[in-house]
Each structure stands twice: as structure tokens, then as C-alpha cells.
């Protein structure tokens, strides 16, 4: 065997190395995105905590928890419907997977509408990015930034749910794509678990 053959063999071996952690590439990419996005939200929440801690006249404008409780319930339930979509897809039930994916999208739209309604209520009371009638203007900036970033994620998720759902039904995507999308949707739900206590519940008027 010549030196060139050895070299060729080594090269071929390199090319046939399996995926990192034995995870499909799309799924690994989504996990890496989620890790990166975790840092983004964590940085926002840490910055919010910093200014809240360092400001003496931090407002507590929320009098009712009904809206945020309803939003939490809807988002948690949408995670369950996403899991049902994945299980249907894995079982080969195409119609069921499509139906659950669309139900998840509808829940996301409902969540976004409730969120916008809440924003409009606060804006109507005089709250903007830089000022509000209750205390430091930093409250509006941090509230709209964090909830706005989350709402953007929900909106992107709803669009992705519709696109992936329709393409899955058409046979262009498979159960793996539903799983990758599900990871993203559960992550959006996970972030909300931190936004609710820190941005809403810690600012309840007592």
C-alpha cells in the first residue's frame, strides 16, 4: 500500500464521521440557537433586574393578574398541543399532526392578541418606552423590551408553525421537522416562565 493510499484512507474516514453527539444536524442547530437565545433573554432579564434593583421609585402598576394568568395557561397548553402534534407525526398520523400543529398556531395567535391588548391598555394609561405616570421611565423601556422580544418570538413561532404544518401535510417536511419546531415552541414557553414572575408578578400593586 502506497503513502497516497494511506492518505486517501484517512481522508475518507474523516468524511464519514457521524453527527456531533449523534444528534441530527437540524436538531443540533436548533439546540445551539436555543442556547444562544437563552443568553439573549438572560441578559435582558439581568439588565432589567439591575435597573429595578437600583431604582428607588420603581412602579408597581399591575392590579389584575387575570390577563397574564390566561396568557400563561394558553402558552402552557400550546406546548401540550405541540407535543401531541409530534406524537401524531411520529405515529404516521399526518392529519392529526397537521391538526395539532394548527391548534398550536391558533393558541399562539390568541396569546399574541391578549399580549397586544395588554400593551394597548398600558399605552392608554400613558405608559411609553421612556415615561409612565407611576415612576421611573426605565420601567416602560424594560417592560416593552422584554415582553416585545418574547412577543416577537411567539409571532415568528406562529409563522413557522403554519409554514411547517402546511409543508408537512404536503409531504415536503417530516416528523423530524415537527420535532425541531417543537423545540423552539417549548423554548418560547420556557422563557415565559421567567418573564411572568419577574416582569409581572414582582410588579403587582399590593
Amino acid at each position, binding site marked *: 500500500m502506497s503513502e497516497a493510499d494511506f492518505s486517501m484512507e484517512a481522508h475518507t474516514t474523516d468524511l464519514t464521521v457521524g453527527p456531533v453527539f449523534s444528534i441530527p444536524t437540524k436538531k443540533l442547530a436548533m439546540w445551539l440557537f436555543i442556547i444562544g437565545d437563552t*443568553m439573549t433573554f438572560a441578559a435582558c432579564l*439581568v439588565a432589567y433586574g439591575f435597573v429595578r*434593583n437600583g431604582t*428607588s421609585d420603581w412602579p408597581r402598576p399591575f392590579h389584575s*393578574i387575570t390577563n397574564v394568568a390566561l396568557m400563561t395557561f394558553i402558552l402552557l397548553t400550546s406546548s*401540550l398541543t405541540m407535543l401531541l402534534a409530534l*406524537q401524531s407525526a411520529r405515529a404516521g398520523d399526518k392529519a392529526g399532526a397537521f391538526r395539532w400543529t394548527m391548534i398550536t398556531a391558533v393558541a399562539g395567535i390568541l396569546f399574541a392578541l391578549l399580549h397586544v391588548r395588554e400593551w394597548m391598555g398600558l399605552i392608554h394609561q400613558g405608559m411609553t418606552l421612556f415615561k409612565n405616570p407611576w415612576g421611573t421611565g426605565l420601567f416602560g423601556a424594560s417592560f416593552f423590551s422584554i415582553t416585545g422580544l418574547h412577543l416577537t418570538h411567539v409571532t415568528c413561532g406562529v409563522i413557522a408553525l403554519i409554514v411547517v404544518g402546511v409543508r408537512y401535510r404536503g409531504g415536503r417536511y417530516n416528523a423530524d421537522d415537527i420535532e425541531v419546531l417543537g423545540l423552539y415552541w417549548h423554548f418560547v414557553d*420556557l422563557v415565559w416562565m421567567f418573564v411572568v*414572575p419577574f416582569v409581572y408578578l414582582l410588579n403587582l400593586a399590593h
Partner: protein
Amino acid sequence: MPTAERKSDGIKNDLVVYVCLLALAGLQFVIAYQHIDASHMFLRMLAVAIVEAGLAVMFFMHLWTEKRGFVLFVLIFTIFVLLGMQFGWTDSFRMVSGAPFSK
């Protein structure tokens, strides 16, 4: 195990985790109405949120079914960076108490 049976078992497990998450979310709302100071309230809410996040990551996102090396990669990297963000807190207390800048 047949596919239908496996699917039914999976749904049962997911439902249990879903109910747990709902209960923990409800617990956060209960904590919000407790008459305790803000720092205690924050710590309790943080603890509940971490448990919720752990359940969601492990069971909804199925991290526990992945290779152990990947689980360690995600956990160690994420926790390390999150802890790395906690350096500035003492400065936020300085802001509110009006202490001078360090020389």
C-alpha cells in the same frame, strides 16, 4: 410495544408534566400575593421558575433522551454563562444607596 400503546404512554407522561407545570405556574401567582419582602419573593419565584424550566427542558424538549455528553454540554455551558452574568449586582445596590465610586 405497539405504536398506539407507546403513543398513549407518551401522552400520559406529557399530561402529568403539563399538570405539574400548571400547578407550579399557579404557585408563582400564590407567592405573588404573600406578604413577604421583595428579595424573598424573588428567590421563591426564581426557585419555582427553575423547577418549571427543568421540567420543560427535560420532558417537553426531551433532553433526557439525548446522549449524556450532549446533556452535560447544554447544562454546563448554559449554567456557566448564566452565572457569568451575575457579577454586577453589588453595583445595583450602590446605585440605590448612593455610595461613591470605588477608587
